[in-house]
């Protein structure tokens, strides 16, 4: 059954703004890009102080006001209607999203080189998806911290990924989502080579 796409989703913030290098921040960026691309508004809401506490940093409530999604990739799947794609297209998307969920998203945020290498390893798949589609939104969210914080010598090792990143940044949905994202996460200082001086 395919329903009309929601005009808005409600993003309820439960905890303090997430740090930029966390999976919660990555998820937030994925949701914001997907919502922009789908033309769905995001209404922000703070959790009711009297409501039972949850460990989740935020959740998305769909238009039906009943369905709560805690997982950013599930929100992306909903906004892009991945479940309604033709079987071949759907499996192509599911397969690469599952790789992101099981491999990329569980990597240590501190190891920028490993994250970039993992992203580069999927570049042949990523380049087949236009910017701000489901796969691109998920990978951009997952790779953004590493791509935007790695120093030039490290980034230089991954030219194809850099090119992909530049294409994403030029997309209107990504452009519109980034300022909202930046305003709602806490910046983290990156020390690629920690020393006594820094």
């Amino acid at each position: 059954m395919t329903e009309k796409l929601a005009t808005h989703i409600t993003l309820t913030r439960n905890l303090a703004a997430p740090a930029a290098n966390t999976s919660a921040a990555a998820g937030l960026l994925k949701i914001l890009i997907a919502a922009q691309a789908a033309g769905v508004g995001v209404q922000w809401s703070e959790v009711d102080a009297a409501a039972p506490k949850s460990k989740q940093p935020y959740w998305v409530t769909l238009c039906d006001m009943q369905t709560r999604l805690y997982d950013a990739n599930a929100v992306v799947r909903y906004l892009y209607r991945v479940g309604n794609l033709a079987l071949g297209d759907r499996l192509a998307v599911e397969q690469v999203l599952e790789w992101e969920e099981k491999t990329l998203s569980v990597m240590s945020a501190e190891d920028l080189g490993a994250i970039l290498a993992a992203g580069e390893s999927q570049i042949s798949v990523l380049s087949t998806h236009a910017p701000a589609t489901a796969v691109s939104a998920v990978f951009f969210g997952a790779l953004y911290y590493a791509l935007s914080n790695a120093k030039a010598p490290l980034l230089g090792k991954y030219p194809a990924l850099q090119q992909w990143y530049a294409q994403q940044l030029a997309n209107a949905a990504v452009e519109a989502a980034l300022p909202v994202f930046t305003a709602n996460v806490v910046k983290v200082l990156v020390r690629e080579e920690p020393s006594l001086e820094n």
Partner: protein
Amino acid sequence: GTNAVAQLLAATYSEALAGATDADKAEVSQWMTMSARHGPTERQAFAQTINDHLAGKTYLVSNYLSLADLIAFGNVHAFMESLSAQKRFNWCAFSRWFDLIQHTVPAGALAKAGLKLIEIDLNAPAP
């Protein structure tokens, strides 16, 4: 990955398992992702999440069997086997759901997956 294969099988043989509505589909995928992210060392937390979620509910998503139930069941089967009768009783929603799913899955399919029926007693253990 296993989740994509499960989606393929559902699409081929029983579309409803992937979720009847767009919202249900999103919830099903959320549970599948959670199952994938909770490795062997996090099964207790996952079981607790399932138990909390199932208070007043029969299935993980909406009111019908879906891939969410089947994938999560496969994930927690070994963990359930290791639980004491007291723990199974404490997590009564989780245990009741587990028992329902293991009796919904055909015995032949369970055996092929190398899983066996686990006897679950939902009565309070003797003190």
